[in-house]
């Protein structure tokens, strides 16, 4: 990058100004970038799904974050290292970074026209070289300790409701994760489309992992996982990611867990972690779990939760349904002692029940709307921000990939 002892300094302001000019063109920029990349290196096309719309958003977000933090390496470096490690599952190799850089520079040139000077091009080339080398180094380092992808066999597929299935997958190699983390998953039925799911159990001796999947209308991956995937099918898993919902050793001991729909998955994993730690002589935590569904038939895991509640004195489970539709039905017959669930939004019921802020950590997971509404209520009730841990299905709170604000460091010390 720099030559013969003269250190060339990148003009950061000029770099940022030029990106602002380019970014003003919106989606066209990423469209041109990928078209340039695929024209130059056609074999790269097959690494991407057919529809590139979400991919383009991610690219622009990642570039924007990188440019705005190009002079703040303390924040940029961990982000890029994560990005580099994360790209391993797509089959990205060090050789791919060259053509990507060429396509990027060419695209910038396309949009900047006469403003694309030699000096500016050199600045961008330097900045890109830094980005690429950071990502490559992190990927290389990760490859020493973990595979790029894990192949896992679906060993159980249980359809719990019309649109919710519980899958158990068995990875071919040990898959170490911490309860509360999630992992990207790809099914052969929908190649190159990765979606994040959260293990619904603490790590087991046999290594198997439960997944709670709800079919999103029009969602190609979730509907394949619910409707088409069968026992014996294979899926691929990326490395575990995310530290938003993992237990914080420095936080309060007692926990409030609020789950909307399949947002129950990470919460159930946390409950199992607490059970394992208690058994191992860890501190006593009191855990209050609120689990919500639209109607009582959607409380797909209630029987298992009640069993956990019966077994552990420190756990209290409250079921909440938005619409009280005919409770006295199959559920009432199978568990005659089951209480009638609370009616309302799970967040409202939970915040009302837990009352004033106390020394408890609150975890919220569900659809973005449910998470936002619940957080608003918690803040209104005066709960301090540092006690709130949350994640939304549609990316609220940040998945590390498209949302750089997510924490990149783990806070807990749980050893799987």
């Amino acid at each position: 990058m720099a030559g013969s002892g003269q250190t060339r300094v990148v003009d950061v302001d000029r770099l940022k100004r030029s990106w602002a000019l380019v970014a003003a063109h919106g989606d066209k920029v990423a469209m041109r970038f990928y078209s340039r990349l695929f024209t130059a290196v056609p074999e790269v096309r097959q690494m991407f799904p057919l529809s590139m719309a979400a991919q383009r958003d991610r690219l622009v977000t990642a570039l924007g974050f990188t440019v705005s933090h190009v002079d703040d390496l303390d924040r940029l470096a961990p982000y890029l290292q994560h990005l580099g490690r994360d790209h391993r599952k797509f089959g990205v190799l060090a050789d791919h970074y060259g053509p990507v850089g060429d396509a990027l520079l060419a695209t910038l040139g396309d949009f900047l026209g006469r403003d694309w000077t030699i000096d500016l091009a050199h600045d961008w080339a330097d900045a890109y070289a830094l980005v690429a080398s950071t990502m490559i180094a992190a990927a290389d380092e990760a490859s020493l300790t973990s595979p790029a992808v894990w192949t896992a066999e679906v060993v159980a597929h249980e359809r719990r409701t019309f649109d919710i299935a519980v899958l158990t997958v068995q990875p071919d190699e040990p898959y170490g994760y911490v309860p509360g983390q999630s992992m990207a998953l790809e099914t052969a039925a929908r190649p190159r489309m990765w979606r994040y799911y959260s293990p619904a159990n603490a790590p087991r001796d046999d290594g198997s992992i439960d997944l709670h999947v709800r079919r999103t209308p029009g969602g190609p991956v979730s509907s394949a996982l619910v409707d088409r995937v069968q026992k014996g099918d294979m899926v691929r898993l990326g490395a575990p990611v995310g530290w938003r919902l993992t237990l914080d050793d420095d936080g309060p001991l007692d926990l409030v867990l609020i789950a909307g729909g399949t947002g129950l998955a990470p919460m159930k994993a946390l409950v199992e972690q607490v059970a394992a730690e208690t058994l191992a002589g860890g501190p006593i935590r009191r855990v209050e779990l609120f689990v919500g569904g639209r109607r009582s038939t959607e409380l797909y895991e209630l029987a298992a939760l009640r069993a956990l509640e019966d077994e552990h004195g420190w756990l209290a489970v409250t079921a909440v349904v938005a619409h009280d539709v005919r409770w006295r039905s199959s559920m009432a017959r199978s568990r005659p002692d089951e209480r009638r669930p609370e009616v309302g939004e799970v967040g409202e019921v939970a915040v009302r029940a837990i009352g004033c802020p106390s020394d408890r950590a609150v975890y919220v997971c569900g659809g973005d709307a449910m998470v936002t509404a619940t957080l608003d209520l918690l803040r209104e009730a005066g709960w301090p921000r540092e006690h709130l841990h949350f994640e939304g299905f549609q990316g609220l709170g940040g998945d590390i990939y498209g949302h750089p604000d997510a924490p990149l460091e783990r806070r807990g010390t749980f050893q799987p």
Partner: protein
Amino acid sequence: MNTDPTLSAVPPPASAPLPAGRPARPQTPGQVRAATFTRTPLGRRGFDEDDVTRYLDRLADEIATRDDAIGRLMHENRKLRHALREWHRDMIGYEGVDLVSMAQQQVEEQIAQTDAYSRQREEEAARLYDEIVAEAYEEAERRFGAALSGDLEEQTSRQRTLIVAVLQSLEALATQVDATRQTFNSEIDKLELLDKS
């Protein structure tokens, strides 16, 4: 570069002419290592100071010249690389790139259409499912209340048949959607083949 104290100790080189009779070509590393200096007169130890200074001046000059040349070459190199990229950009041309963009856009529009269609159908199916289940519960409770368990079973099996029918039609739809996706896939494959040729 000029901050190295050992270099700044050397007097300014400009005034010192090259010693007469020596070739004007830059010194090679071998020549530098083999350089000899006149012994000082009057039996003092060491080399003639003027001799050494002249030689160091000459080396400093040559290094400066080379640095200039390297700087110029690097600048040239940068310009050439830039020009090469621009040329490459022109060679690929906007037409090819724009064609790929257009194809991508068309594919995405069709996918969006299919997705919207399947979302609509799935939502309808979910509503229908809810209605059937609600009806079944209502009916079951009514009959349960009338303490007619045999009828309940018959009713339940009828509802199950209905639900299975709904699921089957959904599966048929999923197959249809998948077939559409496969078509898109082969279209894109063709595009890729075009790109490569």
